[in-house]
């Protein structure tokens, strides 16, 4: 696409867009959402639904804006009488077959058929005596259910499987008024990225069995976050209902995941609702851990740090935020520090082959890059002769108590208390990625923000806050109250993050400086 700009007027708003842009995209620039069904920015253009009809001055008939390129001096009308009438007629045809399922349909509330029907005030069809009807529900895959009656044949799902997943298992079977979405008889919709058809489907025809009947969408709160499933770092929404995470959905980011996320990432949310959380700071007294307040526990950690010298070992979870990792390093700045993070890898990437640079990656942690940038490595194999050993957020799976026993002082900071950490001297309750603000760095060195979606149970606080408090107690720093302050402190200390600030990272993140290699202090 050349960068030559074309000027046109849409509904009286003048916009300049690159040559080759479609009218529907140009309208977005003008702040106008032209109603559409088959068009999706992440899929090839089909032009089958006729919902996006607009008037282009000079053209003999209405044009579909999703497949019409802009031209110099075009004058486009979207909401005139003729265009509205065309849309109403399209809706009327769709409503011949579409059942009045809204009360029991999971899509209700985020359904484009509902929205546009409402906008156009076209609630009725004059022809509704012979709707086509199918079996109520069909299982397409492990998580995807197909309710054929609701389908409006936009073919987004077919195009996704053909061109994005490149596993063409869906098609439009039959023709004309008998057409329906069919699946290859010997196949299932179980591609590792198949769940995206649920988001793509503009109506409640393809729905997620996992989310079925769990909540009505108008009860949900949506929070911008980052998937913790792998180093790709897909942008997501965390959808919560009364403090419970009920689903994860992809959030568009052209530079990372386009409009998609994999099924592995999508289903990876139950741990965020886990009930076995540490709810208060615990301090060892007379051989057992006793619940205490933050002040007491932090003073205890400060006392341990102050009274020790020599070797310190830390083991951080791969889900730790940059901010926590940074303040953890700061805390042990006067020690000979061995900093490790825990990595999990699985052989073989699972790409979404039709989309460049998008795959479920082998490194199944979200912040390996951030940890490496901050001087952590993934070669932990036990502690010996250390004066302090600190674990941050790791669940210690696959680690034996013997591997942890070689330190004089043992501090555990995390969300749940694994068996192997029960002999810790101090335990601090931390927060999960859904309960704090912070940043991760993905495999392409993109620093991305995530935000708090639910409140932490009990007295849980972000680990960076706790470490900064200890530093303050030791007289080596000021209190840090927000993730923005924490990030900015890191950015001015660590070379790779130099010049960045939390507020300018924005929703789409920002890449690290090219020549950044490790910590420079």
């Amino acid at each position, binding site marked *: 696409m050349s960068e030559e700009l074309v000027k046109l007027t849409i509904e009286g708003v003048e916009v300049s867009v690159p040559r080759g842009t479609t009218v529907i995209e140009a309208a977005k620039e003008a702040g106008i959402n032209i109603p559409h069904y088959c068009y999706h920015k992440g899929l090839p253009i089909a032009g089958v639904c006729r919902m996006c009809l607009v008037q282009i001055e000079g053209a003999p008939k209405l044009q579909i804006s999703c497949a019409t390129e802009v031209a110099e001096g075009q004058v486009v009308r979207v909401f005139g009488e003729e265009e509205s009438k065309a849309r109403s007629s399209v809706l009327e045809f769709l409503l011949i077959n579409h059942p009045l399922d*809204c*009360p029991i349909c999971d899509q209700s509330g985020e359904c484009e058929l509902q929205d546009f029907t409402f906008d156009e005030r076209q609630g009725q069809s004059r022809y509704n005596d012979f709707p086509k009807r199918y079996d109520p529900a069909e299982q397409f895959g492990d998580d995807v259910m197909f309710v054929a009656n609701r389908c409006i044949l936009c073919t987004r799902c077919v195009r996704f499987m053909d061109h994005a997943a490149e596993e063409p298992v869906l098609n439009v079977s039959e023709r004309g008024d008998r057409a329906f979405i069919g699946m290859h008889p010997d196949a299932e919709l179980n591609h590792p990225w198949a769940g995206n058809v649920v988001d793509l489907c503009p109506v409640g025809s393809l729905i997620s069995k996992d989310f079925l009947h769990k909540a*009505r969408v108008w009860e949900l709160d949506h929070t911008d976050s980052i998937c913790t499933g792998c180093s790709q770092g897909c942008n997501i929404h965390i959808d919560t209902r009364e403090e419970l995470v009920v689903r994860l959905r992809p959030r568009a980011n052209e530079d990372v995941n386009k409009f998609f996320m994999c099924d592995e990432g999508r289903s990876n949310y139950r741990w965020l609702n886990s009930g076995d959380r540490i709810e208060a700071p615990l301090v060892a007294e007379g051989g057992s851990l006793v619940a205490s307040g933050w002040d007491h526990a932090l003073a205890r950690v400060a006392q341990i740090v102050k009274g020790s010298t020599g070797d310190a070992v830390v083991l951080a979870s791969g889900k730790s935020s940059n901010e926590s990792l940074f303040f953890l390093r700061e805390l042990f700045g006067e020690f000979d520090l061995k900093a490790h993070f825990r990595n999990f890898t699985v052989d073989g990437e699972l790409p979404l082959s039709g989309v460049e640079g998008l795959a479920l990656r082998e490194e199944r942690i979200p912040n390996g890059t951030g940890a490496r940038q901050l001087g952590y490595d993934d070669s932990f194999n036990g502690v010996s002769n250390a004066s302090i050993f600190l674990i941050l957020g790791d669940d210690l799976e696959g680690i034996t108590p013997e591997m942890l026993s070689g330190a004089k002082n043992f501090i555990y900071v995390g969300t749940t208390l694994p068996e192997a950490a029960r002999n810790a001297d101090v335990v601090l309750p931390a927060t999960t990625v859904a309960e704090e603000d912070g940043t991760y760095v993905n495999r392409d060195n993109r620093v991305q923000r995530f935000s708090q979606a639910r409140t932490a149970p009990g007295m849980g606080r972000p680990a960076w806050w706790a470490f900064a408090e200890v530093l303050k107690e030791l007289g080596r720093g000021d209190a840090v109250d927000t993730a923005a302050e924490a990030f900015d402190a890191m950015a001015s200390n660590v070379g790779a993050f130099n010049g960045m600030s939390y507020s300018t990272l924005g929703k789409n993140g920002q890449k690290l400086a090219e020549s950044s290699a490790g910590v420079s202090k």
Partner: protein
Amino acid sequence: MAISVKVMQRKNQEISYLRAALKGMALTFSHLKRPSVTMQYPEETKTEDWKLPERWRGTHRMLTDEQGRAKCVACGLCPQICPANCIKLVPGEDEEGHRYPLVYEIDEFRCVFCGYCQEVCPEEAIHVGQHYENAEYSRDRFVYDLERLCAQTHPVSTLWDPSDARGE
């Protein structure tokens, strides 16, 4: 010091109560001959010229289908619209894959009997009823569960007069 009081002298027929008493009793006795208008509640709950209005909004009732199942499909609209936040709904799925209310409770104590739930219900399932006798021995009995809502038999409210939907 004594105060001098002037005593008015009136005629006897002016200060006698007899006339007024007889007049009052005449009125009282004349009522005996008139038809009674007192409704003998609770033996009687309606009379010829007074009954509960059709648009009375009282204790709820859940209507059922031919098989006796609640008509509710757990769409979630009534808990959403309820201004008193007194409807509790947990949706579930039955053996045939139909959506139905696993838990459906209305706290009649918190309800303000606005009738919005009936108005919003797409299935004509939940209704406010023409009913007002709600005495119970304990507060928690006022939380009606689905079974109890379905078991109510009183007539349901007509939120508006169909022939005069705008109330004009």
